[in-house]
């Protein structure tokens, strides 16, 4: 085993040692297939929430999901980006037209059904979203190196199954480079987010998920917020250890949410997005003496 792979395997062992005891109530007998709905997935969203409050609840969030131009932005934008990479000189709108014409090849049934139902106005709204995303990501590497970028397909995840547990560590990466022929350890990852506020957490989680999935750690992770800019992190033990610690907290929160008893609370500005806000005394107390400000200002009434 090369040094890289040995290091990658060591991170798998560390993650197993940390997560195993926390998640013993998610144990599954060897060889038994776990129904899809019973799996717990620790993604960067879960890690972020646990970092804010272990008892945070967004259990209802998925129920309201509807396809929309904003929700399809990343999936369609990735396909547009692939067109820009593969056909130098192509413009984003023409790439978008080509993706729409070939949508059954690119996307799953639910998105294809929604796209089928769009008229010209809806397609225009979606084109604006998807092309904006693609152009923002295209700036990650100089155009001459674009051909060397591997672009995630919609639905691609970095996912590692924790041995003996109904538990997956799930990471996301929008693009990586080099495209092919490289050892996993030579890869540089790109993750696109809405804001850079928690860039180190996002980078650490993506790096850890990649390391666990491929048993080999990447070189760097760049976090890009199209509105704000980008920041890059070298992947070292420090970044991965912090990420592993946050993963442990997310596992603890997930187990408490499923089996109880309730996890300890830590109120903050996130309480107003929490599904427990109405019944949680800590959250209510925190909000009680903090008037809602708009960018620092109190409204007249």
């Amino acid at each position, binding site marked *: 085993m090369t040094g890289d792979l040995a290091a990658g395997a060591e991170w798998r062992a560390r993650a197993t040692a940390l997560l195993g005891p926390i998640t013993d109530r998610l144990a599954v007998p060897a060889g038994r297939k776990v129904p899809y709905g019973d799996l717990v997935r620790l993604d960067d969203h879960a890690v972020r929430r646990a970092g804010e409050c272990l008892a945070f609840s967004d259990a209802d969030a998925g129920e309201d999901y*509807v*396809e*929309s*131009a*904003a*929700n399809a932005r990343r999936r369609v934008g990735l396909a547009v980006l692939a067109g820009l990479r593969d056909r130098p000189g192509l*413009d*984003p*709108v*023409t790439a*978008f*037209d080509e993706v729409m014409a070939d949508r059954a090849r690119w996307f799953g049934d639910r998105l294809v059904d929604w796209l089928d139902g*769009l*008229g*010209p*106005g*809806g*397609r*225009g*709204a*979606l*084109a*604006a979203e998807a*092309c*904006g995303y693609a*152009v923002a990501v*295209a*700036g990650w590497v100089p*155009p001459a190196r674009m051909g060397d970028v591997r672009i995630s397909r919609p639905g691609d995840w970095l996912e590692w199954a924790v041995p003996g547990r109904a538990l997956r560590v799930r990471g996301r990466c929008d693009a990586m480079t080099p495209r092919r022929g490289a050892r996993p350890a030579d890869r540089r990852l790109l993750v696109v987010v809405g*804001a*850079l*506020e928690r860039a180190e957490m996002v980078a650490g989680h993506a790096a850890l998920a990649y390391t666990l999935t491929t048993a080999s750690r990447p070189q760097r992770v760049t976090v890009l*917020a*199209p*509105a*704000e*800019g980008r920041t890059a992190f070298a992947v070292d033990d420090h970044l991965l250890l912090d990420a592993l610690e946050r993963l442990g907290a997310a596992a603890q929160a997930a187990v408490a949410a499923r089996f109880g008893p309730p996890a300890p609370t830590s109120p903050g500005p996130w309480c107003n997005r929490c599904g427990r806000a109405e019944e949680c005394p800590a959250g209510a107390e925190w909000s009680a003496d*903090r008037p*809602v*400000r*708009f*960018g*620092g*200002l*109190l*409204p*007249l009434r």
Partner: protein
Amino acid sequence: MIRAAAEPLPSLRGTVTAARDNAVVTTTAARFTVPALLGEALDGSARPCPVDPGELAELLAWFRAECEAAVARSPADTRPLRLPKGRVTDLLACERGALARLGDDAMGAARARGRITDLLVAQHATIGLTPDVRADVLDALGALGPDGAPVLGWLAGASEEEAAELWRHAEVVAACLAEGWGALDRAWWPRCQERATVVLAGGALVLSATFDLVVGGPPTDRPWVVVEVKSGQVSDRHRTDLLWYALVAALRHGRAPAWVATWTAADDGLVPLPVTLGTIEAAAHRGLAALDRLVGLAAGRAAGVTPHAGCGWCPELDRCEPGLARVAGLVDGPWPGDAAGLGES
């Protein structure tokens, strides 16, 4: 370092006759149209003075340091302070009016007009409009899901007259786009509703703007042009809004756009502003003036009241004697360079 205000501009109004009922639009001044602006930007003939990267970096560093010093005077529990474009305009026009607008996100006729104008521009700039403008708009609003719901909700509750007025506006916008803009060259890589956020003072201050239409610039090899879309008619006051776009764009990307421009949908008017170091410097001074007010108000200072031409659209008007007097024409208040949005979006 240049410390002058932005250069004076030539007369910049594109004259358009818009026959609202049948939406026939005739552009009579091709000089100030979107295609003419892009053409001149491309051949470089209209750019008076390219921005020197070193001087720009120096100016932006000065602005960042000034912001940091200003924000340090705000109470910690009020941070992060946020300055989107509209708040800069509101704060400089009237502090009390600015506070009255906070959290007011109710959908009304003006906002609905603004929203559908943006959607029509987005469709025109990408896949192109169809002759059935109403169907295009309804389809786009549906595709936006929760983001389109407020306009659809407003339309459902609007009177026949209000709805007819909105659809007339949509027809005029579509006609202006078709005749005034023509097909937009896809090689410009048009992008719509591009957000730019600049985080300063270690996260204590967030400046932002949404560019309605961006063409050229990186990663294309064309000049970078930012266009703000307004649903109303052309006005000189739009130039001050443009300053903010130039500043935020320069802070976000470390380079200046070649042009910023406002396009007004009701009359196909165009106010283009070539971006020079002076433009960005004027924007920086204006931004710091707004920030100074924001910091003072956040710290609890009483809001000043300065009646201006936008009082008629202020949510506080019914409770504001100076504003009522201004609207009634009893007070000849100055037209502030930073009058509020005057009911447009």
